């Protein structure tokens, strides 16, 4: 009996000392922190949220009703307690934009954003690695200089400016890609997962699949370019630095072919800082998605969030921010896993 208890408790201890378990637990605590933070800022700052939400022309009794609904007439910790209770019961509160529960809205709008972000990540990884490798392979060549100029432009031009430029040039002037939305008029796909590319493949609708991809290109590209530039630059710098390290020269000293040296022995260590920086790039991607979805009229969570923000729809704002926070936490854990896969020193330290 006691022996059993001991093994259970040591097993529990082992689980708790695991790096990832700790990280996940910590991020759950942090997510609660975020909810308190947003909640507090919303309630503590001057101005009446109910009045702000309903606008100056709403009659006072309606505002009073809404105030009751949000429990604004009670102390802030009580408000938070009830809100938390609701969250555990699967309710995020009523949205003023759609007059539905915020969770219902999130379920509806999240897939479009997920699809956009995943497509952006694919473009980002392909772009960053090919440019970084091309550039790092032949430093100071013509192509390297071109990549470096592109990297400066990519970093200095914000996503929403890329969005405007790409929309103007590719959609309006050259007219080779659609300017708005997820699908062309007249094309419909049954909702299964909510990811149109996946749903269209599942239902065998290749026309819709191709249409969905063409709609994804410009928004994803505008989100990806900055990250591509950043990562390509870091990869290039690390390749150039590592290629002169003794462990590379040692491989040359043994007559190992230079392609193996470059793509195996130099690339892997150089990838570690590049993948590490992707956590930050993921953050900027999730943030910029708010503007890009607005520009491309993309029916995703971020555009819903912007609408909520402009209407001061508190429940919806807190809901969206929490979901984005959760997504960011998951993304950073995945990137952590990738880094530890690449870097045994990190793996064994954890």
């Amino acid at each position, binding site marked *: 009996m006691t022996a059993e208890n001991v093994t259970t408790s040591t097993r529990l201890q082992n689980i708790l000392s695991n790096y990832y378990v700790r990280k996940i637990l910590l991020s759950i605590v*942090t997510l609660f922190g975020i909810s308190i933070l947003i909640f507090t800022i919303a309630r503590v700052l001057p101005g009446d949220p109910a009045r702000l939400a309903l606008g100056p022309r709403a009659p006072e009794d309606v505002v009073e009703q809404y105030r009751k609904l949000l429990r604004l007439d009670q102390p802030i910790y009580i408000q938070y307690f009830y809100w938390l209770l609701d969250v555990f019961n699967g309710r995020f509160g009523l949205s003023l934009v759609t007059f539905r529960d915020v969770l219902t809205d999130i379920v509806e709008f999240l897939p479009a954003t997920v699809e956009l972000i995943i497509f952006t990540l694919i473009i980002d990884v392909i772009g960053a690695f090919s440019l970084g490798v091309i550039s790092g392979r032949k430093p100071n060549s013509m192509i390297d200089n071109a990549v470096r100029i592109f990297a400066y432009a990519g970093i200095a031009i*914000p996503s929403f400016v890329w969005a405007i*430029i790409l929309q103007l040039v590719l959609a309006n*002037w050259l007219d080779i890609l659609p300017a708005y939305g997820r699908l062309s008029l007249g094309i419909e796909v049954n909702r299964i997962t909510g990811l149109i590319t996946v749903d269209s493949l599942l239902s065998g609708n290749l026309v819709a699949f191709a249409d969905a991809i063409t709609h994804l290109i410009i928004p994803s590209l505008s989100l990806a370019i900055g990250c591509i530039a950043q990562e390509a630059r870091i990869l290039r710098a690390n390749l150039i630095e590592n290629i002169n390290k003794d462990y590379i020269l040692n491989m040359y000293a043994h007559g190992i072919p230079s392609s193996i040296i470059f793509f195996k022995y130099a690339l892997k260590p150089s990838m570690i800082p590049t993948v590490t920086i992707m956590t930050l790039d993921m*953050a900027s991607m999730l*943030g910029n998605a708010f503007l890009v979805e607005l520009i491309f009229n993309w029916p995703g969570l971020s555009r819903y969030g912007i609408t909520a923000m402009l209407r001061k729809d508190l429940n919806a704002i807190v809901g969206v921010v929490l979901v984005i926070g959760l997504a960011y936490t998951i993304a950073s854990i995945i990137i952590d896993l990738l880094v530890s896969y690449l870097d045994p020193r990190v793996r064994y330290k954890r």
Partner: protein
Amino acid sequence: MKTLSGATVSEVKFSELEKKVKRENWRRIWFRFKKSKLSVIGLSMILILLFMAVFAEYVAPYPSHAGLYIAFKNAYKPPSIEHILGTDMYGRDVFSRIIFGFRYAFMMIGLVLSIVVPTGVILGLIAGYYRGTFIETVIVRLSDIFISLPPLVLALSIASILEPNIFNSMLAVSLMWWPWYVKLTYSMTVSLRNEPFILAAESQGASTLHILFRELLPIELGTILTKVTLDAGWVILIGAAISFVGLGAQPPTPDLGTMVSEYSKYLPEYWWMSLGPAAGIVLIILAFNLLGDGVRDVFAGE
């Protein structure tokens, strides 16, 4: 008498020597900075833009077009010699408005950084110095919460709860930004905390204030300065994003982000209206990035 005068002379010499060393340090930093062409270009760009911002009334060809001004007969004019970046839907000169936009941009950088940097640095120093105490836990955990959200998302949601105007958007950016300086200063302080020279200063009875600001801060200053220059561009970016969404400065304020947002409704026909202020944003970010790279190289070599 001889010894007395000798002592004074050597003391004077010592303080002069110290001054000379400091002067030489700065000269060396400037020398190294000058060698990087890109950072000199960045600095000159910033100085030119700053000049335009300060003397906007004299530099802008149509200073009255900055705010409310209507001349419908001049509306929607593409770029020409009179209006090098064209005119907008009210007939205002886009170029003039951009120059006033620089003024808001520099205001934003100045205000945000002067709130964020001292706050973050002081909290970071304290958290690092009082390692293992309750103070550390509170400061570090609180910063962690702020940092665990994508910065732009946090800034947008803070801005959304406030009245939409330019000062509140600066406030939102500041509220989002300070934890990054806490993190930076904290990690440096923790690694310096047990260095012999700090312990020696402590054992000689140096005050906490002395250790924080006279011993620790000077060493960390280079890294902090590098981050400040690299961050200046990002402040503009986040600020412009807030304005673009409509949660920041409202028209007719000639804020660059607001202008891009306002004018983007007239795309694609009247493209010059949006691209002008967009290019203004890009110029500022680029200038600070170029400068920041140079500053980083200078301090990385120290």
